[in-house]
Structures are given as C-alpha cells and as structure tokens.
C-alpha cells in the first residue's frame, strides 16, 4: 500500500503527513523518485527530512531535520487552511462509497458501540488539501455503504456536493487498499476500482466492499514493487525499528 501511494507523489508536492503508512509512503517517495517533495507534519515541522520513520507526529527527529517549526495554531491556520498543501493523507475506520470518512464512533454518537479517537487534523485536511489520498484495509467493516458519522467530508452525497459547499479543493482522489486502487468517478464521485494489485480477483474486491462496487471501464493491473522500492522501504523500516527502541 505504501509503495502504491508513494508512486502518486512528485517532487512538486507539499504533503501533510500522518504517522504510519502515510509517513512511510511520503518518505519512500522522497528517497526514490521525488527527492524534492516537501513533507509537513501537523505538529508544526515544515520541510522535515526524517531518516527514520517517527512513531508519533511530534517526534524530535522531525523537528531536528526540519527547515523550521511553527506553532500548532499557525500550522492549521496559515499552512493548512491557507491552502498551501497539495496532498493530504487520511486513514479511515469507516469509508463510504463517496469517500466520506468516519474516525469518530461506531454506532450512535451519544451511545457509541465503539468510541474511536476522533477527527484530529483530518476534517480540515479533507477540506483544505489540494487532493486527499486515503489508505485503508480492504475490509467490509471499513468499506461501508454509509458511515455512522461524517468526521471528514469526502464527496458528500457525490456529484458536485463539494462545489455546492464552496470547497475549492478536489477531496479524495485516490484510495489505496491492500487489494486495489480506487478513484472517484469523474461525474458521480462514487469510488470506483481503477487498478487491481497482482493476484487479486474482482470477486475478492466485490466481496470485501460493503456496497456493489463498480469497476472503471479500463482497469489496470498495479505494477509490482520494484527491487529498489522494496529495498529502500526495508532500509527505512529497519532504521526506524532500531530508532524506536527504548533508550
């Protein structure tokens, strides 16, 4: 998933990076085909160049390798809301067919079955980044027809819903799962399978998606990871595991 996401980044991107898969994908891109990519972590570090993958968004590695560090209010006001970020990454506990994300509750808000962590930076990442990449496991509990709570607005009810709310940004443009890549249909904005990973069947994808999933008219096969991509990713993860040992 990280490698597939990394391939969609370029040196011209300014990425708002979360911890975990997004951080791995962005740093993989930086260490392979996008050396000039700009990474921003919501803790306030601009142009961070970590050599190990941070466990939290506020790890000292980020601040020490950054061009500069700004306060959290400034990060959200001047940098994110200011419209300076080209790509934001989000995870999802639930994701619906129009790319709306729930990370707040499973069940009703007042009496939740499962209380999830909540929105954090996600609601405004979803609104203000030029486009949003979503990384999620392809599981029917995640890919649901309708989310229990809209934490982060994707394409709403589909179509031109974002435009009608006055949002100038594209919203979710790429969903990376362990089975495939999905993209919103240009008209309806329904998430549609665009590329299938090697060895995965259409039936498997359909079976693990909570709505009758559609496939693009021309579906590609995702190219397998190259030896170089795998090597860089393994190196990065090895350094990170070493670095996160208690000291």
């Amino acid at each position, binding site marked *: 998933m990280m490698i597939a996401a990394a391939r969609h980044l370029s040196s011209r991107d300014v990425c708002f990076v979360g911890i975990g898969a997004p951080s791995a994908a962005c740093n993989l891109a930086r260490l392979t085909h996008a050396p000039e990519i700009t990474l921003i972590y919501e803790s306030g570090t601009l142009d961070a160049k970590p050599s190990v993958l941070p466990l939290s968004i506020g790890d000292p590695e980020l601040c020490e390798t950054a061009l500069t560090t700004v306060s959290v209010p400034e990060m959200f006001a001047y940098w994110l*809301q200011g419209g300076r970020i080209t790509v934001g990454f989000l995870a999802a506990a639930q994701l619906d067919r129009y790319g709306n994300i729930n990370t707040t509750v499973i069940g009703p808000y007042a009496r939740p079955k499962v209380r999830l962590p909540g929105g954090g930076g996600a609601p405004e990442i979803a609104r203000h980044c030029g486009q949003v990449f979503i990384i999620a496991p392809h599981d029917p509990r995640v890919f649901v027809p309708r989310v229990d*709570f809209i934490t982060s607005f994707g394409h709403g009810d589909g179509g031109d819903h974002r435009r009608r709310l006055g949002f100038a940004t594209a919203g979710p443009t790429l969903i990376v799962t362990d089975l495939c890549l999905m993209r919103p249909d240009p008209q309806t904005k329904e998430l549609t399978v665009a590329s299938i990973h090697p060895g995965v069947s259409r039936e498997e994808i359909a079976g693990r998606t909570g709505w009758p999933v559609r496939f693009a008219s021309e579906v590609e096969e995702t190219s397998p990871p190259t030896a170089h991509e795998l090597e860089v990713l393994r190196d990065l993860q090895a350094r990170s595991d070493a670095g996160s040992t208690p000291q």
Partner: protein
Amino acid sequence: MSERSAARRARILSLTDAIADYVHDGDVVAMEGFTHLIPFAAGHEVIRQRRRGLTLVRMTPDLIYDQLIGMGCARKLVFSWGGNPGVGSLHRFRDAVEHGWPHPLELEEHSHAGMAAAYTAGAAGLPFAILRGYLGTDLAHANPNVRVISDPFSGEQVAAIRAHQPTVTIIHAQRADRAGNVLIEGIVGVQKEAVLAAKRSVVTVEEVVDDLRPAGPNSVVLPSWTVDAVVEAPGGAAPSYAHGYYRRDNAFYTAWDAIARDRETFLAWMNEHVLRQAGSTGSSSTGPSSTGSPASTGSQTSSGSSPEGPPAPRTTPTSGRRG
C-alpha cells in the same frame, strides 16, 4: 481579562503546593503539549490530590488524560483526537465513554484546527474564533460550541467556535529563570496560547537556571508575569519527551495498551506508580521515583482507595486510528 490587569510574577513552588494552590475541584483544566512536553508529573499530582469534577481540555488527551479519566478526576473532556499515538486506543477514555466507568464523561469534540483556533481566540481576548471548517461534517452538529456565521462582506459561511478560557493551564517546559520567565524549545505546540487563554497557569520545568539564553531558533518565551507558578520537575514530561533533555519512551506508550485495557491492571499500576510516589518530581512513569521526596507526599495525598465503578466487559480493540 481584568484579573490580568495588574502585573503578577510567577512564584517558584513545589509541585504539591502549586497544584494545591491553583487547581481546584470543578475547574476547567487544560494540560497542553503536542506529543512533546506533556505535563505528566503535574497530571500525576492532580491525581494524587484527588481533584474531582474537572473539565479536562487538551487537543490530544494522550496517556495523561487516560490516567486522569480512569482515576475519576474528570466530568467532561474537550478534545480533538483521543488515541494512543502510533499504538491504538486510549482504553480508559473509551471505557468512560462506552460504559460510564468510573464516571460518565461528557464530551465536547472539535477538530485540531478548531481547538487551536479556540485557544488562539482565548489568548487574544476574543469571545470566539472563526475558521473554514466543520462544514458538511457531523462534528458541527455534535458540538453546541460550534456555530455557522456569515462573512459580512461576501456572505460566505464560516464556522465560529467559542473561545477556550481555561480556569488553569498546566504545561511542562525546558527551563525557567529565577524570575519565573519560561522557555519552550523544539515543537512548541499550542502551549503559549493555552497559557495566555487561561485565568491561571502552572509551568513545570526541567530546570530553573540563572539565564534562559541562548535559545534555539524554534523557541517560545513566556514572561514571568503571564505565569502563576513555576515548579522544577526534572523528567516531568516522561514518558513523552523534552527536546534537548530526554527522548520519548515509545516502549512505554506501547506497554500502556495492555496496562490500561483492564480496569484492575490499570488501578494497580496507578497505585504503584502514581499514588505511592512523591509529588515533587515527574520521573514516575516507568518505575519508582529515584529523586522524589517521600516527606512531601502526606498532606495532600490520602493513599490508596481506588475509584469505584461497575464491572464491565473488556473493551474491544479498534482499527479506528489515523496517522
């Protein structure tokens, strides 16, 4: 903000005295530090002094609020992301919300941008903040302190968020000088705004020094006259980190998942590592304090009895974290 209209100077106090003097039952308490400089030592002293009915405010509740909630200090939580960063759930937070243990917990939920704007408005003496946010999300409906207003020039709709004005803000910083001026370096987070928005403030520091300088390029200085109490509490941010002093104890964050998942395990751990520790240092997160003064414990901390609550099934793990 008429309480601030005459200059005050920070008093340099023991942790026990600072919490006793400035944190009271029913207060709105903000403890800030965005992954960095989380004021664990002060939070533990609040637990030892058995404050009750607190409204806890914090962008990322983290382990410290998990502990305060699990120990029954909180009535309400104002927050934007309640997970264990890089690990998963905060089980005590979940247990309080899902099962009301040890008390039901009222929630006021924002996005990070909304929390940051609310602190900024509080620091700036404004009654509310505006931001382009919340529109289209269910957060706007879940929080009565979020409204929609119109730009008087274009008519565009923007969100208005009521300002945060904590009764007391508690933060941890690297250093203070003897006059009580405070220095924060590294990832500076929202601490300046949280202190300036509050009626009172307590700052624990790694060390009190003669001269704050030289400060690095990413630094924030809070003048003595914006702070009520400064407390020397070396290690007071552990298991989070203090830039220039010690690193984040990632292993403890991972271990917390198992400790906090079960009520009895949690209570036993808190009893051993927090309630029985002295109030004058903060290095109590992973073992007995080596520098604490046992003599300072007695007056404020009646030892032992754990918070009561109904038995409940173990909560289930969740995939709902975001990076």
